[in-house]
């Protein structure tokens, strides 16, 4: 199922499928299409989210996270 990264619950894992914002900015940080990530921090009042990709922790604004589509529910 394809959902926005911002909607991913805490602790859930998913695979990046679409990046509908500056892909370069996210790619150089290690967030690329096909990568598996895990939501590790969600801040209240529309605060930033932090995802874990392998050994990398990447923090981003909720708005950016809303433009990243991830696939959940697959066997990962």
């Amino acid at each position, binding site marked *: 199922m394809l959902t926005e990264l911002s909607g991913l619950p805490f602790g859930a894992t998913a695979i990046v499928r679409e990046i509908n914002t500056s892909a*370069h900015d996210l790619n*150089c*940080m290690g967030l690329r299409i096909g990568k598996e990530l895990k939501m590790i921090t969600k801040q209240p009042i529309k605060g930033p989210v932090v995802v874990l990709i*392998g050994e990398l922790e990447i923090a981003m604004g909720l708005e950016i996270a809303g433009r990243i589509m991830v696939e959940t529910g697959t066997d990962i």
Partner: protein
Amino acid sequence: MTGGKTEMAVLVPERGTTVLMIGNPNVGKSALFNRITGANAIVSNYPGTTVDFTSGTFIGGGRTYTIIDVPGTYSLDPRDAAEEVAVRMLRDYPDAVVMIVLDATKTDRGLYVALEVMERGMPCIVAVNMMDAAHEKKISLDIAALQRILGVPVVATTATSGEGVRDLADMLRKAKVADIGAIAQRMRGEEPEREPAFTCGGCGGCGGR
């Protein structure tokens, strides 16, 4: 400055080859820089410690190198002042050798900026630093394979203990311009042309001969 350093400057007046250390923030560029040059750049366990460049001198194999420790950058499309410094350094020293520093535990991220640097056609050498952290996390790296694919010298280092730093310094003179087309071919499993300098594809201990 100590008396010894002043004397060295008198003996070796020429600046020699400039070496720019480029890599992601917090991969140990400054720690590696201190190991190579004996300098005392500030090192901490936080990204963004180096915001301006520091330079030092290293003399090895009869050559003088001016090593420049550049602030960490995720890409060559700068997004903050420290990254702008990195891009400006690359532009200001077009004849420099680039020492690309990777974090052994986060190589894929480091390779992004590494390939951007390689696209510029500058001679490169890659240091895969923080090997101790990789061992600790049970991450194994095929350094020889990385060297074969990139076609430039790749050396495993641990700046905190000094492991591999001498090899890295010795390999500086072997820095090569990477061929992006050939890298892409090798990634697809094709073999462009044999590189006689790297037929051993080994540990790099022999200097790649």
